[in-house]
C-alpha cells in the first residue's frame, strides 16, 4: 500500500502555492512568486514520479493485475447511509499516469512562464492561478468518489475561467472566459444529473463500489437500473450519457466545443497547460474512469461516445485547415485529437485484447499531452517574438528561432503520425482498434489523420518558411533558458514517448496487454500523413497564391469551415436572442407588471377606496347628525321588520 501522506502532498503543495501567492503575493512575493510556485510544483512532480515508480514497479501489481488502491478516504459530507461524498485518493494506472502527466506538463509551463510572463504586472496572481489549476486537476485525477470528481471538475472550470480572463482589460478575453465557463457549466448540469441517476441506482457515490455494483448483472442495483427506462433507453444508459455530456463539455466535443477556440485569449502557457494537455482531456479521463460501466452495462452509451468523438475529430480537423490564428489552429487540432481519444474509448471493449482502444486512448492522451504542450509553448515563443497571433505576420522565422523551429518540427511530425515519433505509435493503436470494431469510425479517423498532417504542416511552413522575415530586430531574442528548457524537454518526450510499452501498464482491466505494430496496417495512415505534409509543403513553403486559388476553388466548404460551420452563430442566436428575449425578458416583465402589479394593485385599491370614503368624515357636525339619524332609522327598521 502506498503512503497516503505524500500523495496528498502532491495535491496540497500547489494549493499551498495558490493560497500563499494569492493572499500575500502582491505584497511580499512580487518577484519571487514564480520561483516559489515552480519549486513547489517541482517537489510535487518528483513525488508524482516516485508514486508512479512505486505503483508500477513495486506494490501496484497483484497476480499480474494492477489494483485500484484507495490509500485515503475521508467522509466529507454524508447524505444518507451509504451515500456520501468522500474525499479520497484512488491509485490505479490511469490516475497515476495522469498524476505524472499533469504535474510534469504543469512544471514545464511553470518554468516556461518564468520567461514568458516576466515583467507582467500580475505575476503573483498568475502563479497563484496556475497553482489553483494544478491543485484542482491533480485532485480530479485521484478522485475516488464521483462527487469528488465533480467538485474538482468545477474547480478546474473556474481556474480555467480565471486564467482565460487573465488579461482582464481585453474585452475579447472577458467574453471568452465567460463563454468557456457557461458552456462547460451547461454540460456540467448533465454531469450532475448523471451523478444523481447513477448514485440513486447504485446506492453509492464511491467509484469502486459503483463500478462493482453496476457491472455485475446479478446485483439488484444493476437489475433496477436496467429495468427502469425512459424513452426506451434504460436509466443506466441515461445516467452514463448525461455523465458523458459533462465530459464532452469539458473536452470540447462537438457540439459543445465552441468555447475552446475562444479560450485561446488566455496567456499562451496557460493554453498549453489547460486547453491542450490537461483539463480538456478530463472528459476522456472521466469516460475512462467509468469505462467498465460503459463497456459492460451500457454499450449504447459507449458507441455514442465513439461517434461523437469521431465527428468532433473530423469537423475540428476541417476547420483547423482554414484558420489563420495560429493558436486557434492548435485549439482545433486539440479538439480533433481529443476526438481520437474519445472514439478510441468508444470502439473499445472491456478486458484483454478487446480492450486495445482503451489502452490506445490513454496512450494517445499521454503522448498528446507532450507534443501538444510543446506546440503551444513553441507557438508561445513565436508570439512572444512577433507579438501577433496571425499567420500573415509570420514567415521565415527558422533563422531567428532555431530551437523553437526544431522542437516545433518534432512536435508536428509527432502529431502527424510520422514514425518514429510518439504520435505515430498511439495513433496506430487507435486506428487499429477502430479498424477491428467499427469501420465507419476507422475511415473517418483515417481521413482525419491526413488532414491533421496537412494543417499542422500548413502551420509549420507558414511560421518558419514561406515569405522571408522582414521584421528582424536585433533586440529581440528567442527567450531565455527558462523558455528553451521546457521546449527541449518536451521535444524529447514527443520524440521518445512512443517507445514506452504502454499496454504493459495501462489496460482496461489492469492486465498486461501486448501491443504490436503491423507493418502493412501502418502503410495507409503514414502514407496519408506524408501526402498531407507534401501538399502543405507545396502550398505553403514558398510565398505564393496557391492557397488562395485552392480556397477559391473550394469556396463553399472553405467558407463554411472558415466560419466554423456557423455553430458559434447558432449558439449566439440561441443564447442572445432566444434565451434573453424569449425567457429572460418575459420573466422580468411578468415580475414587474403582473406579480408586482398585483401587489401594487392591492395597495392602490385600498388607497383608492379609502380616498373615496373619507368624504364621509367631513368635519360638519350636522352631517354627522344626519348619518346618525339615518343609522337610527335604519336600525329601527331592522328591529321592527327583521328582528322577529
Amino acid at each position: 500500500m502506498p503512503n497516503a501522506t505524500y500523495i496528498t502532498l502532491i495535491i496540497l503543495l500547489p494549493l499551498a502555492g495558490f493560497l500563499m501567492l494569492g493572499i500575500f503575493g502582491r505584497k511580499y512575493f512580487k518577484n519571487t512568486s514564480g520561483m516559489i510556485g515552480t519549486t513547489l510544483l517541482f517537489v510535487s512532480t518528483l513525488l508524482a514520479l516516485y508514486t508512479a515508480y512505486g505503483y508500477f514497479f513495486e506494490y501496484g501489481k497483484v497476480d499480474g493485475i494492477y489494483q485500484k488502491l484507495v490509500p485515503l478516504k475521508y467522509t466529507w459530507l454524508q447524505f444518507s447511509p451509504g451515500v456520501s461524498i468522500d474525499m479520497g485518493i484512488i491509485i490505479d494506472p490511469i490516475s497515476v499516469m495522469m498524476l505524472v502527466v499533469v504535474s510534469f506538463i504543469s512544471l514545464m509551463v511553470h518554468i516556461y512562464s518564468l520567461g514568458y510572463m516576466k515583467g507582467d504586472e500580475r505575476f503573483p496572481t498568475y502563479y497563484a492561478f496556475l497553482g489553483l489549476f494544478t491543485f484542482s486537476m491533480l485532485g480530479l485525477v485521484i478522485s475516488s468518489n464521483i462527487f469528488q470528481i465533480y467538485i474538482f471538475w468545477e474547480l478546474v472550470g473556474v481556474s480555467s475561467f480565471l486564467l482565460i480572463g487573465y488579461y482582464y482589460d481585453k474585452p475579447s478575453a472577458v467574453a471568452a472566459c465567460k463563454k468557456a465557463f457557461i458552456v462547460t457549466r451547461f454540460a456540467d448540469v448533465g454531469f450532475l444529473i448523471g451523478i444523481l441517476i447513477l448514485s440513486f441506482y447504485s446506492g453509492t457515490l464511491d467509484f469502486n463500489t459503483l463500478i462493482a455494483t453496476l457491472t455485475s448483472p446479478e446485483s439488484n442495483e444493476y437489475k433496477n437500473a436496467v429495468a427502469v427506462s425512459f424513452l426506451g433507453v434504460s436509466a443506466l444508459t441515461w445516467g452514463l450519457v448525461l455523465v458523458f455530456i459533462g465530459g464532452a463539455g469539458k473536452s470540447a466535443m462537438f457540439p459543445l466545443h465552441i468555447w475552446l477556440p475562444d479560450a485561446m485569449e488566455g496567456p499562451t502557457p496557460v493554453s498549453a497547460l489547460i486547453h491542450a494537455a490537461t483539463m480538456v482531456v478530463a472528459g476522456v479521463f472521466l469516460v475512462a474512469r467509468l469505462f467498465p460501466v460503459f463497456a459492460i452495462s451500457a454499450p449504447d452509451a459507449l458507441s455514442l461516445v465513439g461517434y461523437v468523438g469521431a465527428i468532433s475529430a473530423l469537423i475540428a480537423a476541417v476547420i483547423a485547415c482554414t484558420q489563420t490564428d495560429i493558436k486557434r489552429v492548435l485549439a482545433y487540432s486539440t479538439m480533433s485529437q481529443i476526438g481520437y481519444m474519445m472514439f478510441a474509448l468508444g470502439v473499445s471493449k472491456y478486458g484483454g485484447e478487446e480492450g486495445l482502444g482503451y489502452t490506445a486512448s490513454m496512450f494517445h492522451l499521454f503522448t498528446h499531452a507532450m507534443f501538444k504542450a510543446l506546440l503551444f509553448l513553441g507557438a508561445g515563443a513565436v508570439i512572444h517574438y512577433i507579438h501577433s497571433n496571425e499567420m500573415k505576420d509570420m514567415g521565415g522565422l527558422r533563422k531567428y528561432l532555431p530551437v523553437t523551429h526544431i522542437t516545433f518540427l518534432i512536435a508536428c511530425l509527432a502529431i502527424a503520425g510520422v514514425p518514429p515519433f510518439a504520435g505515430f505509435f498511439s495513433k496506430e493503436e487507435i486506428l487499429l482498434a477502430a479498424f477491428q470494431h467499427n469501420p465507419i469510425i476507422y475511415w473517418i479517423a483515417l481521413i482525419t489523420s491526413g488532414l491533421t498532417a496537412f494543417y499542422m504542416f500548413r502551420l509549420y511552413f507558414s511560421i518558419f518558411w514561406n515569405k522571408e522575415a522582414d521584421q528582424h530586430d536585433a533586440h529581440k531574442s528567442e527567450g531565455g533558458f527558462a523558455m528553451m528548457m521546457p521546449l527541449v524537454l518536451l521535444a524529447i518526450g514527443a520524440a521518445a514517448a512512443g517507445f514506452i510499452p504502454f499496454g504493459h501498464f495501462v489496460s482496461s482491466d489492469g492486465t498486461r496487454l501486448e501491443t504490436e505494430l503491423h507493418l502493412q496496417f501502418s502503410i495507409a495512415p503514414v502514407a496519408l500523413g506524408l501526402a498531407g505534409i507534401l501538399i502543405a509543403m507545396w502550398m505553403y513553403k514558398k510565398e505564393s497564391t496557391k492557397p488562395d486559388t485552392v480556397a477559391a476553388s473550394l469556396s463553399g466548404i472553405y467558407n463554411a469551415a472558415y466560419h466554423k460551420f456557423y455553430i458559434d452563430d447558432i449558439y449566439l442566436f440561441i443564447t442572445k436572442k432566444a434565451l434573453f428575449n424569449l425567457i429572460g425578458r418575459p420573466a422580468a416583465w411578468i415580475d414587474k407588471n403582473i406579480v408586482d402589479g398585483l401587489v401594487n394593485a392591492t395597495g392602490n385599491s385600498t388607497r383608492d377606496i379609502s380616498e373615496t370614503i373619507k368624504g364621509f368624515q367631513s368635519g360638519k357636525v350636522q352631517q354627522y347628525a344626519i348619518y346618525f339619524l339615518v343609522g337610527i332609522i335604519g336600525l329601527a327598521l331592522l328591529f321592527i321588520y327583521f328582528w322577529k
Partner: protein
Amino acid sequence: MIEPGLIYHMLFISATLFFIGVYGFFTRRNLVTMLMSVELILNSVNLNFIAFNKYLWYDKLDGLFFTIFIIAIAAAEAAVAIAIIINLYRSHQSIDVEKAEEMKF
C-alpha cells in the same frame, strides 16, 4: 285619573317637539340655536317618559326619575356646550358650525 285617550295627545306633542328639535338641529348654523334644538329633543323625551310612566306603570317612578336625571344632565350639558361655544367664538370669531370643520379626514 287622566283620560286614557290623552296619551295620544301627549305623544303627539312629544313627537312634534322632537321633530322640531331635529329640524332645528339640522338646519340651523348657529350653535346656540342648535343647542336650543337639542334641549327641545331632550324635553320631548322627558314628556315621553312621563306619559308612558303614567299610563303603563303608574305605580312606579322610574320614568320620573329618568326625567329628573335628564334635566340635570341637560343642565350640565348646556353649561359645557356653552363653554365650548364661547371657546369656539374666541378662536373662530363666529359660532357658525359650518366654519368649524377642522376635524375632518
